[in-house]
């Protein structure tokens, strides 16, 4: 275990910081482990399971995940920081993933980004003050023949324009 986490655990704040996985989360992770040759392979899936609860993965969750997987917390931390869809900062209730790759770029990505900025007051990487939306950059969503594209949470939207963008977002409260 890395010194960072052992420090956390031996500190006075250990109780306050102790992160409990729910029974369901634990069971889901254990079921995932069964799909692989060893528990380490379930790291990413385990982090995603944790991420479902709050929309992001707090530091305190890392040792909890490591314990279920039986691997060092530093290894889980290494994975958690490498992959861009594991969020390590608090996020809003809804995640906007606006494609910034080349086809959407040609078809008006910057205008859409500007529209979000003027209407919601957030740029890439920021969260609205009411915690409603976080705008996350994402690479090509594999929807280039219907570009510009974005995802809001798990929903994918095509052929966006400054005119239809806000009515799409309106549906997410």
């Amino acid at each position, binding site marked *: 275990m890395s010194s960072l986490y052992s420090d956390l655990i031996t500190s006075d704040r250990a109780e306050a910081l102790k992160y409990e996985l729910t029974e369901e989360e634990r069971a889901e992770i254990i079921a995932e482990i069964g799909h692989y040759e060893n528990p380490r392979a379930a790291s990413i*899936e385990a982090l995603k399971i944790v991420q479902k609860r709050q929309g992001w993965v707090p530091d305190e969750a890392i040792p909890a995940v490591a314990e279920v997987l039986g691997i060092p917390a530093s290894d889980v931390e290494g994975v958690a920081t490498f992959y861009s869809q594991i969020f390590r900062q608090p996020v809003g209730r809804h995640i906007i993933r606006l494609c910034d790759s*080349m086809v959407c770029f040609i078809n008006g990505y910057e205008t859409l980004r500007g529209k979000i900025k003027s209407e919601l007051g957030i740029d890439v990487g920021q969260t609205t003050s009411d915690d409603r939306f976080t705008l996350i950059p994402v690479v*090509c969503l*594999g929807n280039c023949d*219907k570009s510009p594209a974005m995802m809001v949470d798990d929903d994918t939207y095509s052929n966006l324009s400054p005119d239809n963008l806000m009515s799409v977002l309106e549906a997410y409260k």
Partner: protein
Amino acid sequence: MSLITPVTSGLTSLGTCNSMPRAPETHPLTWRLNDDASPIFLDEYRSKNGYEGARRALTELTPDQVAAEVKEAGIKGRGGAGFPAGVKWSLTMKGEGIPRGYLLCNADEMEPNTYKDRMLMEQQPHLLIEGMIIAAYANNSYRGYIFLRGEYVHAAANLRYAVEEARAAGLLGKDIFGTGFDFDLFVHTGAGRYICGEETALINSLEGKRANPRAKPPFPGQSGAWGKPTVVNNVETLCNVPAVMANGIEWFHGLCREGSEDHGTKLMGFTGKVRNPGLWELPFGITAREVLEDYAGGMRDGLKLKAFQPGGAGTDFLPASNIDIQMCSNGFGAIRSRMGTALALAMDETCSIVSVIRNIEEFMAHESCGWCTPCRDGLPWSVKLLRAIEAGEGRPGDIELLEEIVHNAGPGNTFCALAPGAISPLGSAIRYFRDEFEAGIRSSSVQASPAAAHPSLGTA
């Protein structure tokens, strides 16, 4: 039966593949598709000749015969590199004393302008599963994983549902078709890094590690996932296998146009400033012009083609004068270029080449795993230079510096193919559109900034 709810309507991939004319004899990848894109699950797939290729392969052929047929058919990898699948399969270690290994389907699909595997997986998951059963048999794999990018939530649901159907029907699991062959399959979703698509990085990622590429040798076919023989193939590659097994090599060889050394059909696309962007199953050897004009409806009103990129962010920028090129690897080989995925991008006179390249290099710089210097340092440096040129503030010598970066990150100088793919568009853009770069150099005779000249593409 299932805990998984498939997504049966509102699929993102509903598109031109669902409406183009197609037939079983000529469109092995798309003839089964429904006009409304509703996914084809087990009963429907079976009623449309599904799993007949797998049945023949497993009950009538030995694994080596399957690999030999795929080799003779000449199915080349559809993930961008074009390596012959049958050759790869014949190199997989198998035999007495060698543990059975893994079959990995590369479904990471993150290269900008790539949107073909999504369609296959959302709408026809059993075609992929059938291809994987045959490939697993040929390679003696006991387990398969579909390495799927995390954003493809509908594809994940439909694949998982189809895997359960196949398992319940005895098509996965023990003793498939009563042959004694066992194979099971899982869907593994990623968490967003382009480098995961590189086959050895994919293996590391699957094992739950950071996705750095591995040194070769050993090749995955010798020692891959968890140290066992491992085969990695693209979704579309695997989806080509069932029809070859069911219809034969001669039929497959009859599909492409004359002059093409690649056999069969290819999912091809055109996006960007075209009238009807889309995805179509077309014969290898068709010309880029035909795809653009006959399928994508030509350029949008009043626009003129300036440049196109034939197959993804990692392929060359080619001038419009190349538009009669045949879409096949030898067609592009003749001009020392690469076809890539055959999903093309059209740029018109209002698109600033420098801005588009800057966007590509930003992507590549961000996605570099950081292992080798020319990639880790060279790509961000190119972004810096390109931003300056884009703003009309390039300095004399910047273009030459970019050329040096292109040279240093070229083939053979880095650990994996990300860097060569990253700088190939840049090198070709400088070669063919040098004047647009020169226009962004401050002391040059041409003063206009490319960004100002092209208001449709503001600077970031």
